[in-house]
């Protein structure tokens, strides 16, 4: 029980943010109207993805330092889960863009950047599939993972700030928090962020434990 408190917390926070997200009061804004509720779902996906990718890089560095195969499994499962959250983020973003910006995929630097970052992590998974030998696979994919991470940050968080972007907080736009969110929204938003991040980590640990059991079953005694 002592170890599982954060899982219960994650479930409670996500449930609370879903209920409060659909029922709670939101400010009446031009253009956004009720779609502002999407901020409880679209933004936490990216936070969760970024957390998982960071975990993956940390464990890749750890793997290179000590060669423990468990760390490699954590790194790859964090990327697997992160990619799912990235797709969910793109999906919720496309729905939102369809209503507020007029089309599902406007040519926006942040949208394109996150799509390319997804390609980068899919390339990481392809790289793992091409290598047969386990130690070599773990080592080389760890190297690529660490190499790709700073480029991902440039792509998703630095370039959109420099060029024109439709997203708030980029290209000289004010951030969402300054302008559009009122004091009713903030607690729901933060609990959604924390809840989804913890859920992501939970999924990642579940996948990691399944992989451990699989490798145990495959072991020859």
């Amino acid at each position, binding site marked *: 029980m002592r170890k599982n408190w954060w899982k219960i917390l994650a479930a409670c926070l996500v449930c609370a943010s879903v209920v409060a997200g659909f029922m709670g009061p939101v400010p009446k804004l031009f253009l956004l109207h009720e779609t502002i509720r999407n901020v409880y779902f679209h933004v936490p996906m990216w936070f969760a993805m970024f957390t998982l990718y960071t975990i993956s890089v940390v464990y890749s560095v750890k793997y*290179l330092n000590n060669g423990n195969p468990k760390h490699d499994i954590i790194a790859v499962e964090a990327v697997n889960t992160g990619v799912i959250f990235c797709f969910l983020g793109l999906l919720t973003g496309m729905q939102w863009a369809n209503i507020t910006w007029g089309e599902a995929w406007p040519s926006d630097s942040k949208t394109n950047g996150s799509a*390319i970052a997804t390609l980068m992590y899919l390339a990481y998974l392809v790289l793992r599939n*091409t290598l047969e030998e386990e130690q070599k696979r773990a*080592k080389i994919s760890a190297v690529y993972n660490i190499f790709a991470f*700073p480029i991902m940050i440039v792509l998703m968080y630095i*370039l959109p700030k420099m060029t024109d972007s439709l997203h708030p907080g980029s290209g000289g736009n004010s951030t969402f928090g300054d302008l559009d969110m009122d004091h009713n929204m903030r607690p729901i938003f933060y609990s959604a962020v924390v809840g989804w991040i913890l859920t992501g980590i939970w999924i990642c640990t579940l996948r990691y434990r399944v992989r451990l059991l699989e490798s145990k079953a495959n072991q020859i005694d």
Partner: protein
Amino acid sequence: MSLLQQITTLVNKDLTLEWRSKHAVNGILLYVVSTVFVCYQAFKSVDTLIWNALFWIILLFASINAISRSFVQESQYRQLYYYAIANPRSIILSKIIYNIILMTVLSAIAYIVYSLVFQNPVGDPLFYFIAVFLGAVSFATVFTMVSGISAKTGNNSTMMAVLAFPIIIPLLIVLITLSQNALQGLDRVESYNEIGVLVAINVITVTISLLLFPYLWRD
């Protein structure tokens, strides 16, 4: 030998090997010239936006072809020999430096041929040339490490494209913005931001390559 000596020796070795066979330079030259010609046949005349994009696409594919061979052209036994006598850091640095030299020559030639065949609309030639040079350096630093990774996977050319394209795209976006500014002859102050980002990405890439290559090298 100190690190610096090792690097100069290794760069000299690569340059001498290249000079003897002229294999890479000639092949890539032919590649660039024929691509430019195919594009000319297809497009006849282009406006400035497409002129710029087309140039970078040609340069991108030429550089991927040039650099993907940097680790597979030598046999495994010879690489084992290098591993025995040299520091892995000096090996990756020497490869990066050699590729920067190769890419600078290559992109200069590509630029000249390209602007001979297509009409050259560049408003600020010196600044455009700086953009091309920065592009050559960025391609060299990023692709050298990626070619090191893909050389370990066996099926080299496919993996090289799969791994390298997503990584090079942010650099390419900045490069195209920078060269578009130079093309239109905008005030140079407008582009200092882009140059800063390019230099920063290059420094980061070289640092990470230096840190990671010792792990990649050992087999």
